């Protein structure tokens, strides 16, 4: 039994849910997290416009000096901006998925998550595979692999 911890883009979560359902994975825990990686939270204006949901964009717009975000990104007025300009935002909003699965299902699940989430740009996320000793279904008391099915 393994624990899969995947950190993915906020706007890919719905697609990821569908992809996981399609391969028969039902139990997933979702967490709102913030994080950063190799880029230390730097994003370009282009990414700001494309990969964040509206709620998050408005939040970022209020955190950044006026006019630094392109109109298309926020829907608020501001001066046009070079799309390659980078902002250091520190911690970016991400979604964390936690799944517990049998050993032989790991590859299939990782592949499904990657298929949906790979854009080739920084910020696609990470997947960690950790050992998990046991699982217990609270309702019935079933243990081990039985608790997962």
């Amino acid at each position, binding site marked *: 039994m393994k624990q899969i911890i995947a950190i993915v883009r906020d706007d890919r979560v719905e697609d990821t849910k569908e992809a996981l359902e399609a391969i028969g994975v039902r139990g997933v825990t979702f967490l709102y997290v*913030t994080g*950063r990686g*190799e880029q230390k939270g730097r994003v370009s204006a282009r990414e700001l416009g494309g990969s964040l949901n509206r709620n998050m964009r408005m939040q970022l717009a209020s955190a950044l000096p006026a006019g630094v975000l392109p109109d298309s990104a926020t829907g608020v007025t501001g001066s046009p901006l070079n799309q390659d300009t980078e902002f250091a935002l520190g911690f970016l909003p991400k979604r964390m998925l936690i799944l517990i699965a049998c050993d032989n299902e790991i590859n299939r699940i*990782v592949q499904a998550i990657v298929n949906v*989430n790979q854009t080739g740009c920084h*910020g*696609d996320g*990470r997947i960690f*595979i*950790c050992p998990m000793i046991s699982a217990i279904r609270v309702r019935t008391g079933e243990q081990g692999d039985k608790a997962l099915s």
Partner: protein
Amino acid sequence: MKMIWAVIRPESAQQVIKALDTAGIGGMTRIHVTGHGKDMGITIGAIHYTEIPKEMLLIVVPDSEVAKTVMTIRTEAKTGSKNTPGEGNIGDGKIFVTYVEDSFAIRTIGKAGGDLKRNETDHCDSTG
């Protein structure tokens, strides 16, 4: 490869992150959590609080950097003077270290130049 779960005071989070940055640990995930330790929370006046807000940092590092990371978090998250050795205060937090068997960067997995299993040192960040 190890995953470090550090539960720390929200007030010291920024300081810890800065120190980790300086130590070369750039990638991490941050989660707001609540909880209590063996003191079962705190009582202020007539009210007993059992869900104390904390900040959880999730950091994945190669085995060789675990000691450095844990020491950095410990030094910065401990309240009281850093120069005096010894104890801080109740509620400073805890650090847990668990195994990570595999780590994938979604950006490069399956692509040219990015094998399914990359070198361990490529994975010392958790958000890509």
